[in-house]
């Protein structure tokens, strides 16, 4: 059996929407379990007393990365059929910066705001309204910033390709960085905790 199932024609568009809903349930459940329906818990990442955002995010990245690597190696997953967002380096660097500022100002990101809305957080609801307002504003100014948004195009490209290193080496480096990061995050939390 070859995966991704959808790309290999195991089911069609209609069923893919049911799959979206079911995967979303798993996603939302994990976010809320981790405490990510709470802006204070999320913002704590930037004040160093609770590094859960980093821990959850990097554990998830490492888990999924090891999964696709293993399934690719044993030949069950055709990684070339998994969609990669194309790289536009300049806009993505600026976008990340703006989004990071918005994270600390607003307390959420789009996914976690959905979890906040569902658990009754009024600030999450107002934040979601802000996303709609921002989307409208973006659409209005889009023609004038279009040239920048489409600049620095590098196509669908991975770190192993750009750095000219084997996939497995980058996977190993990411795992090492994550483990060192987890150890450091615990240290920082205890240090900040002992000061306050």
């Amino acid at each position: 059996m070859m995966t991704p199932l959808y790309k290999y024609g195991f089911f069609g568009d209609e069923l893919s929407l049911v799959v979206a809903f079911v995967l979303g349930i798993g996603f939302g459940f994990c976010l809320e379990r981790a405490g990510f329906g709470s802006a204070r818990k999320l913002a704590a990442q930037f004040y160093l007393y609770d590094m859960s955002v980093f821990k959850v995010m990097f554990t998830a990245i490492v888990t999924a990365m090891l999964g696709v690597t293993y399934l690719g190696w044993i030949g069950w997953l055709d990684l070339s059929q998994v969609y990669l967002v194309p790289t536009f380096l300049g806009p993505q660097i600026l976008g990340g910066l703006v989004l990071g500022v918005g994270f600390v100002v607003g307390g959420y990101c789009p996914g976690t705001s959905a979890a906040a809305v569902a658990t009754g957080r009024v600030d999450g609801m107002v934040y979601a309204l802000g996303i709609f307002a921002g989307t409208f504003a973006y659409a209005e100014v889009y023609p004038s910033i279009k040239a920048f948004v489409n600049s620095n195009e590098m196509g669908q490209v991975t770190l192993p390709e750009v750095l000219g290193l084997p996939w497995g080496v980058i996977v190993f480096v990411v795992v090492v960085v994550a483990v060192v990061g987890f150890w450091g995050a615990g240290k920082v939390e205890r240090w900040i905790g002992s000061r306050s």
Partner: protein
Amino acid sequence: MPAHTPDPAHARPGSAYANPYVAGVGLGLVLLAAFVIMGRGLGASGAFSSTMAWLVNLVAPAHAQANEYFQGYLGDGTTHPLKAWLVFEVIGVMTGAMLSGLLAGRVHLSIEKGPRVSTAIRLLCAFAGGMLMAFGAHLARGCTSGQALTGGALLNVGSWAFMIMVFVGGYSVAWLMRWQWR
């Protein structure tokens, strides 16, 4: 299970959050399932875009259809703009989050803020933060879910650049914004 101890200020009886590594493995397995079943990752901001395009098209169809950005979400008009993969996924996110919240007794109307900030200012910041987030996510072609999480696991170059900059952006204004949270 080694229970993760949340900050005392956050803790309410019976509301201890999951160990972040356990929650992270769970999230990673959901993401892996999305890769294996769908050949794509998770997302969130795209659902807001589809909904906004649908709303604007409802109120001012001529305006929406003349707008290049909304046009991309409306398509050729043969399918409903809300019949989009990410819209269904985000409805699932809300369902799953509510389920988890109900099981833990965490669903109630409240406002997340630090002790030093007024409700009005906090809500104003939430709105402004949402606007900034929308701009950032559109510039980057994805948010923390669609770029950082999904692209991070796929070793996508743009996603890693984006993710590093999210932390840079957050930490660079954290000191200025501390009155809102501490």
